[in-house]
């Protein structure tokens, strides 16, 4: 059957089971927007292409499915760059389709021409400039396949306008012909046995659970593995919730703003059971001083992560869900044979020690009962009202760290954020994408800062127009809080370009302008009443502004480049240490 290249794009997306595309039309992609009208696809019209890709990311992070966005050439495609880099860093499966000028015009500096495959090469898992109408279906199918398998990531397909307009015989073959792409899925049997032996011998083992577990959908396998062997679990920023924070084996988040017990657990452990994590600098601090007593088991689907930053004793290349399945199988088998005890490390003393650390070193907020609201109090209250059923999406900065620290997450995908790239402005569009993905029944709450919010709040229009009822919370302290915190601590409190007046813009007028309910909380005593009102609305987007005290800082904190042993729990501790130095 003869169809156009543009129709082939739509048919390919349908054949792959894509339900939603986030996009914005324009010159070179125009041919695709015509068959889109008749396609079995939900198109979300964004207000800026960066919004489209962050929505695709939010959708993918919350559901585990590939997020798809479609935009035109030149400036539209370059507007995807930040989101592609973000998705690449956080291994988010995203398919980006961009229009390109006609193949005959490529290289002529044509209107809205940009070398998009060239620009995005270092920030995509793979990309392709489609060279013929016959390639359209295969290019999209392969891109989708590469995006979601192995270590997931963004893949971009750039399609010249003449190819969209050309006719082609429609053929769909489920198979993918990529001889150079064969991710290893199953772990090596010998390594599996060695890993279990190391664990059995360990006295202070800890699971270092990373975002790869969320991407692999390996929460159940992790739970089974950790609870069988009674291993304490530390979940990184990207893995929050993949092991429930409410479980007694959960130790919290590691790293620069991690929970005290989690940071100490890494510094004192004798065995890191690393699952889908990558020894990121925000986790390790000074690398040479990180987990100094630990032997390392490292499971990752990307062989290049193994041994990249830390020498590994037992490397296991494979899909962490499959590898955990293999490990659990051995454990089950040994339970059946009655020889399980030999594999079970005695972690009683170690766990009691970590429990004591958790008890003795809680997060400190010190909120007075009346008066100015603290940001931590506001974020904790959001959780009290929206609870465990909600998905929480953060921007980047202080509010992100508090949202990660203070909310007890219980499942992978419940926490959506920009970890590796640290993209301010992520929350508003990502929350919209997440909400589209998880559907009506599950509330999605964006926890944003005033700096972040102003980068992307034009997407409120998208949420309103498409009836996507996200709860947008803005923790407004009138500053770029995290930058201010660093200037306060490390630049002698010389504040440079960090003030964003709290009234500029007036967020209640913004809510008004977009026709959505707006709520402002300034005093702690009003918090619950206002949140209860906002919580009652679940059929429209809602904007909640928290006017909070600007002096609050995120603790614990490991100063950049310092050893994790130098963790600070409060500003008083910082001042005492600075006075000594």
């Amino acid at each position, binding site marked *: 059957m003869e169809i156009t290249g543009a129709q082939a794009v739509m048919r390919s997306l349908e054949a792959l089971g894509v339900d939603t595309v986030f996009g914005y039309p324009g010159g070179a992609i125009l041919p695709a927007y015509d068959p889109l009208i008749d396609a079995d696809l939900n198109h979300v019209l964004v207000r800026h292409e960066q919004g489209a890709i962050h929505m695709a990311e939010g959708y993918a992070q919350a559901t585990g499915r590939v997020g798809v966005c479609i935009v035109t050439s030149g400036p539209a495609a370059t507007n995807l760059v930040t989101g592609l880099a973000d998705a690449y860093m956080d291994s988010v499966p995203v398919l980006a389709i961009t229009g390109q000028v006609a193949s005959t015009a490529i290289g002529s500096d044509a209107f809205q021409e940009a070398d998009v495959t060239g620009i995005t090469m270092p920030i995509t898992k793979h990309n392709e*400039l489609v060279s013929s109408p016959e390639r359209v279906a295969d290019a999209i199918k392969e891109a989708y*396949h*590469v995006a979601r398998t192995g270590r997931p990531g963004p893949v971009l397909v750039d399609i010249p306008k003449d190819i969209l307009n050309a006719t082609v015989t429609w053929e769909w073959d489920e*198979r993918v*012909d*990529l*001889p*150079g792409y064969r991710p290893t899925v199953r772990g090596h049997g010998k390594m599996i046995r060695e890993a279990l032996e190391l664990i059995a011998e360990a006295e202070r083992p800890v699971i270092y659970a990373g975002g790869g577990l969320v991407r692999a959908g390996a929460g159940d396998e992790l739970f089974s593995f950790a609870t069988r062997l009674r291993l304490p679990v530390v979940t990184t920023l990207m893995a929050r919730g993949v092991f429930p924070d409410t479980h007694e084996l959960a130790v919290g988040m590691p790293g620069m703003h991690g929970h005290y017990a989690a940071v100490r657990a890494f510094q004192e452990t004798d065995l890191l059971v690393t699952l889908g994590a990558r020894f990121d600098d925000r986790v390790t601090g000074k690398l040479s001083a990180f987990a100094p007593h630990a032997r390392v088991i490292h499971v990752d689907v990307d062989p290049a992560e193994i041994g*990249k930053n830390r020498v590994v004793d037992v490397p296991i290349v494979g899909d962490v869900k499959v590898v955990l399945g293999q490990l659990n199988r051995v454990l089950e088998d040994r339970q059946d044979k009655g020889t399980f005890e030999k594999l079970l490390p005695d972690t009683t003393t170690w766990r009691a020690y970590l429990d004591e650390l958790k008890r003795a070193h809680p997060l400190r907020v010190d909120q007075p009962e009346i008066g100015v609201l603290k940001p931590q109090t506001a974020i904790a209250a959001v959780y009290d009202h929206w609870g465990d059923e909600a998905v929480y999406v953060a921007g980047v900065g202080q509010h992100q760290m508090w949202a990660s620290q203070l909310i007890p997450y219980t499942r992978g995908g419940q926490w959506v954020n920009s970890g590796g790239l640290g993209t301010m402005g992520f929350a508003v569009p990502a929350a919209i994408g997440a909400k589209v993905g998880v559907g009506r029944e599950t509330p999605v709450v964006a926890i944003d800062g005033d700096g972040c919010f102003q980068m992307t709040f034009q997407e409120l229009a998208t949420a309103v127009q498409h009836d996507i009822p996200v709860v947008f919370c803005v923790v407004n302290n009138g500053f770029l809080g995290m930058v201010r915190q660093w200037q306060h601590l490390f630049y002698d409190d010389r504040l440079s370009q960090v003030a964003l007046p709290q009234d500029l813009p007036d967020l209640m007028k913004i809510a008004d302008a977009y026709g959505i309910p707006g709520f402002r909380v300034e005093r702690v005593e009003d918090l619950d009443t206002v949140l209860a009102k906002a919580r009652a609305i679940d059929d429209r987007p809602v904007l909640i502004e928290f006017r909070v005290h600007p002096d609050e800082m995120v603790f614990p904190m490991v100063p950049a480049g310092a050893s994790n042993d130098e963790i600070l729990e409060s500003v008083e501790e910082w001042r005492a240490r600075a006075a000594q130095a």
Partner: protein
Amino acid sequence: MHNRHTLSVLVENKPGVLTRIAGMFARRAYNIHSLAVGPTDDPRLSRLTLVVGTEAVQLEQITKQLNKLVHVLKIVELDPEESVEREMQLIKVAADPVTRSQVIELADVFRAKIVDVAHDAITIEVAGSPAKLEAMAELLEPFGIRELVRSGTIALARGSRSITDGSKVRMQRVV
């Protein structure tokens, strides 16, 4: 001083594959000493020879990162003891009727070929190991080297094994 490693890389003959490889090296701050690329006996494939100066740990990262490129099919590190390496060099040397015979004599010693003669210059073609090419250039230096161009290293393992052994093109399924 980093060690010199020769990598032979089999890639799909697709547009931009060289850019992807060069870009990966640039992005991750790896050094390429030399790079040569050309077609193979199979028109679907190209073969690159990369010479990199690096430590063993980084070499492992380089090969792993290269392997992640979708168009890269196979990477083999060639042991200098177990492989044949060649570069080609073209040198244009000043040579008047008095010095011409000396230059030709030197070229003969290196089994080089005279490929062009002008009234005041000779162009010599020579192939061999990097050490041989450097030695020859050094000896010709006193005559006056007008210009010199050198190819990247190309290399093959000795013996009968081929880089394509065992790498069959396979199909995968989309679930």
